[in-house]
């Protein structure tokens, strides 16, 4: 009985959507996003994209297709299935999707693709990469300014070049404002489990505190939650990453390094809808407001006028090109000037 009503309802819904489809205008698009292993609710990178896609959905009323991959082979499969089903544009999340996206984008030259965190050089692909080292430089400077001991900490997730880029920018920023600053770095692990290990993140943070650190920056996905908790318990300061995490522990969270993947994802969908989609490489740094640092009602009391002035000054210098922050991944070494 129940099943029949359900089937009936499904049937009605299908008819309704057919009618809707018939009245839809040509400007309507069917965007799709393929999330990576972290999943759309990772409180960090993928979730930023999810937020951007949801914002697009709420503003335009257009639905989007989505898929969360669970193994390496599914990336190519999911991207291809999206394109076959008429999705356009198709957004791939994370550097790991690049080889798969390149293959599929070649097979479907009329479909628009976009990828975040990696460059795929094809006429129908928009590649969006961020200068995380610039944002990390600023929060590194802030950390050194806020630190009383002159020792600041970094807790990374999995030990990969991307995270070393965060760490290297952070170290440069700290040493720029305080050449004697000590930057103590730890990576949580060597497997993807390191992205979601708050317990170990907390332990690493505590050991850094014991060595004199009083500000810690986490670039570790879900592991960061443990880092912030440890900082709160010890009465020290912490810096969030990717999304604005200032609200998590007001009074403990000094600031957050913002990486606006939500804006990037939203723009991909919105540009496609407005027929303004452009292929090519978008490098989003401080100047493009793709990265930055967060100041809001939760942390403004902790940022003194002096600190803000100094960081704003550094920010302007980076934007104008007077100050360049070394990118770890450009040569796989971290050169700290000064």
């Amino acid at each position, binding site marked *: 009985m129940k099943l029949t009503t359900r089937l009936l309802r499904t049937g009605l819904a299908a008819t309704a959507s057919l009618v809707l489809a018939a009245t839809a205008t040509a400007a309507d698009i069917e965007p799709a996003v393929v999330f990576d292993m972290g999943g759309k609710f990772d409180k960090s990178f993928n979730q930023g994209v999810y937020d951007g896609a949801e914002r697009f959905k709420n503003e335009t009323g257009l639905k989007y297709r989505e898929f*969360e991959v669970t193994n390496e*082979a599914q990336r190519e499969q*999911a991207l291809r*299935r999206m394109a076959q089903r008429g999705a356009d544009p198709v957004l791939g999340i994370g550097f790991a999707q*690049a080889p798969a996206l390149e293959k599929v984008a070649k097979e479907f030259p009329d479909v628009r693709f976009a990828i975040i965190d990696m460059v795929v050089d094809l006429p129908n692909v928009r590649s969006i990469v961020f200068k995380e080292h610039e944002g990390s430089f600023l929060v590194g400077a802030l950390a050194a300014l806020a630190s009383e001991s002159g020792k600041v900490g970094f807790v990374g997730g999995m030990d*990969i*070049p991307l995270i070393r880029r965060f760490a290297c920018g952070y170290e440069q920023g700290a040493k720029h404002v305080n050449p004697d600053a000590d930057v103590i770095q730890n990576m949580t692990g*060597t497997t993807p489990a390191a992205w979601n290990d708050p317990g170990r993140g907390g332990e690493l943070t505590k050991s850094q505190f014991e060595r004199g650190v009083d500000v810690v920056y986490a670039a570790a996905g879900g592991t960061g939650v443990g880092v912030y908790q440890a900082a709160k318990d010890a009465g020290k300061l912490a810096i969030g990453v990717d999304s604005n995490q200032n609200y998590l522990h007001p009074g403990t969270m000094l600031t957050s390094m913002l990486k606006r993947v939500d804006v990037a994802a939203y723009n991909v969908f919105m540009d496609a809808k407005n027929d303004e989609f452009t292929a090519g490489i978008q490098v989003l740094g401080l100047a493009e407001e793709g990265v930055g640092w967060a100041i809001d009602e939760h942390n403004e009391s902790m940022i003194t006028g002096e600190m803000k002035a100094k960081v704003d000054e550094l920010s302007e210098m980076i934007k104008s090109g007077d100050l360049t922050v070394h990118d770890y*991944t450009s040569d796989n070494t971290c050169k700290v000037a000064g």
Partner: protein
Amino acid sequence: MSTSNVELPAWIEVILIPVLNICLALFFAGLIIFAIGESPLEAVGIMLNGAFGYDEGVGYTLYYTTNFIFTGLAVAIAFHARLFNIGGEGQAYIGGLGVGLAFLLLDGYLPTVLLLPIGIIAAALFGAAWAFIPAWLQAYRGSHIVITTIMFNFIASAVMVYLLVNVLIKPGSMSPETREFSQSSWMPFMHEMLAVVGIDVTRTPLNLSFILALVCCLLVWIYIWKTRWGYALRTAGQSEAAAVYAGIKPKRIIIITMCISGALAGMVAVNEVMGVHHRVILNFTAGYGFTGIAVALMGRNHPVGIILASLLFGVLYQGGAELAFEMPKITREMVVAIQGLIILFSGALALMLRPAMVKIWLAIMPARAVAQHG
């Protein structure tokens, strides 16, 4: 009355009970799907159609099957010597290192006919070497193989991350992976080979490794049941004292068996690294080594059973992905739960239905059963 010593006809043991187990699992999985407001029948339809309904689905199903056959065989052969090899994941991972090192050094110099066998041998050798250490520790130091093989998975993971991040990484690359091997070292794709004989299919990751997996099944069957070595292996597994009495050296059996097991697990790298990715990447093993344990359990440690169980898992993986794709309400976590139910019923609870089956059988066939008792 104990029912475990009553013999049932083979078709009940091998076909009826496993099929009933799967039906039970599907029933409970259906309840979950029903609870979230989707139609279970439609879900099963999507899963089967996604796995077999079109050529791309079949390709992906068989591609997953290939991995499971390798890891399932690895667990099974060790199991016949009563060794529980939980290290398939690490052995497969290190197998990938073997392929990677061989090809990074040689792929520019040698032709395909030489590169393919070299890659396969490298994968097997490295996998075997990774299994050799726990085997030696078990045989000569008494360290329990379950513990050591689990630990070696973590060591393998750490070693691979270190090498990929620091040593083997393609310079300037964001992701920790080696450069792509030259095309002469790629395992031929099935769609390419079929195109040569005029059959046109969609491109999928399915490659020649699938045939290699089937050949391995045959070789393992011959080895275990048709050779002296297999006889020694099974004897040592059944009773170490009897083996020693028969002049078999159990320590040697442990080492040889584990090396074969590790070599089979290392073959996953042939499918993944040589066949699909054409470079060494992080975590290409994606849990296939662990799933191999369930595959071997379900397949009753017999190559034919392992092929069937691998196919079932291939269907679950590919059909499950299709399910998550077609039904947005069904998340990938729910797909894992459904897979878990099937493993639970066909692996862990495999013998749950047997006592009932025995009673029914005795009720139907009293005379024959009594005769067997006597």
